[in-house]
């Protein structure tokens, strides 16, 4: 099955300028075929916005291995028993209504010179522009005891929302009162900087209510809490004294999966439920396709277009990229990357230069118990001299204190960003 540009061009009708005020935007008419790999916060947003902003002029194919989108943000509330998997699962029907061709498959290879991809279920597909939004993959090779399927079925990460999220919940429910749950955190950068601390907090809240003799242990490879430090520390001191223990500089060296034991440099910690967030790098398809990587882990991109710096025609979004200073690996950021890339791709397909002054913003909420949340926000603007995104000085910040209003905002954020990407 070969899709090519000519077929799509035939099917296309002339795009018309929309609206009096922004009719000018329609003056540059983009067309062509964009293939997107990965239907998460980055890829799904790009799929919708490419269709919306091109007035249907650009053909979009989204290739996603899962049948439905399952959100990592809010998934810690599933682990704590406050939400269900159904609450964070959304189908791709909304994207199909935008005219996105959604294919459930996996991309096994990219030929950047021919501008084609290969699909696991067979066949090739050609593209004018390729967008990779594959998220992360885990570096299990750094943890020999966890580098096999059997160990990985016992010692969970639950760092990609889905079956592992539910399985971790089950392990916590099955744990006897008086047991210990431990989460290990890799050195930054990793997906969702505040996520491990949020998870530990929510599980401590669950224990406090249902298993009051149980303990939560955070084994952090970093020298300090990576995100929202003051707010998390205050929540732990106020809400979970004697329940939650934080240990910095505790890098996981290996895992004894059969004995639920975390092996550190000088210590072995045996617990009842061991939850390992492994070290991470760009998703396989981005890491293994010849794109320039930084630290052999993250894709180097041009901030004006999110394009790979060494492979023409390929744009990379979200957690897979080497981030600019202070920029977190978050779903919100991936959504913003997608819009930057979409605007650039449409300009490039129309023969115009990308917007020279892009701006990105990030908001990230974390729950510290089932009713109270905190946030961090930042705005990042392009610095033409340094050719990177820099945080806007004086903007952004964190919550004053955890509260219920922020928890309401967190759910409002989730509903709106899910709609922004999928409906």
């Amino acid at each position, binding site marked *: 099955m070969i899709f090519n540009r000519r077929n799509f061009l035939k099917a296309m009708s002339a795009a018309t300028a929309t609206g009096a005020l*922004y009719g000018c935007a329609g003056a540059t008419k983009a067309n062509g075929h964009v293939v997107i790999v990965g239907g998460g916060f980055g890829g799904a947003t790009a799929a919708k916005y490419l269709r919306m902003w091109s007035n249907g002029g650009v053909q979009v194919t989204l290739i996603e291995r899962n049948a439905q989108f399952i959100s990592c943000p809010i998934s810690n509330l599933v682990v704590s028993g406050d939400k269900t998997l159904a609450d964070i699962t959304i189908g791709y029907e909304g994207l199909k209504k935008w005219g996105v061709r959604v294919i459930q498959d996996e991309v096994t290879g990219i030929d950047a010179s021919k501008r084609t991809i290969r699909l696991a279920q067979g066949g090739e597909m050609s593209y004018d522009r390729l967008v990779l939004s594959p998220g992360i993959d885990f570096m299990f090779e750094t943890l020999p005891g966890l580098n096999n399927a059997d160990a990985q079925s016992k010692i969970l990460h639950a760092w990609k929302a889905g079956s592992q999220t539910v399985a971790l919940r089950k392990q916590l429910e099955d744990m006897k009162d008086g047991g210990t749950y431990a989460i290990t955190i890799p050195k930054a950068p990793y997906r969702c900087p505040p996520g491990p601390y949020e998870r530990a907090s929510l599980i401590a809240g669950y224990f406090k209510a249902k298993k009051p003799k149980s303990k939560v242990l955070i084994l952090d490879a970093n020298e300090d809490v990576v995100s929202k430090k003051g707010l998390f520390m205050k929540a732990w001191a106020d809400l979970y004294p004697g329940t939650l223990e934080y240990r910095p500089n505790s890098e996981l060296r290996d895992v004894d999966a059969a004995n639920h034991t975390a092996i550190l440099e000088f210590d072995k910690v045996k617990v009842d439920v061991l939850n390992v967030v492994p070290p991470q790098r760009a998703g396989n398809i981005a890491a293994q396709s010849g794109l320039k990587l930084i630290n052999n882990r993250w894709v180097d991109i041009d901030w004006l277009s999110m394009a790979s710096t060494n492979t023409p025609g390929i744009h990379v979004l979200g957690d897979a990229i080497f981030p600019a200073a202070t920029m977190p690996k978050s779903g919100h950021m991936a959504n913003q990357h997608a819009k930057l890339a979409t605007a650039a791709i449409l300009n490039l397909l129309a023969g115009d230069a990308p917007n020279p002054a892009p701006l990105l913003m990030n908001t990230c909420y974390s729950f510290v118990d089932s009713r109270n949340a905190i946030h961090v926000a930042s705005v990042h603007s392009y610095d033409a001299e340094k050719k990177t995104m820099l945080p806007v000085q004086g903007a952004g910040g964190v919550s004053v204190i955890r509260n219920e209003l922020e928890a309401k905002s967190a759910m409002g954020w989730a*509903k*709106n960003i899910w709609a922004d990407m999928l409906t």
Partner: protein
Amino acid sequence: MKLRQLFTALCLAATAATAQAEDPNLARNLAATCANCHGTNGKSVDGSGMEALAGTTKEKLLQKIRDFKSGDKPATIMHQIVKGYTDEQMALITTYFAAQK
């Protein structure tokens, strides 16, 4: 092609008064940074508790932003976010949202 160049020139002339409008879609692009919370094109999800910005007059939106910046309007997060945008960017964003139906 000639027609397109003429059209582009007219557009540029129309927006020349607005600073930073090198890309004719700058307002659209900037407004899209708000959509994560306020909905695509400022149309927030019903019942989500997030304010819809679509169709609100430019004056009203700019007043809110000024109040967030000055601290007159209490906020959990908006006072931190609005400080990341210049007055010119806010003018473009508010014009865009005001024009959304």
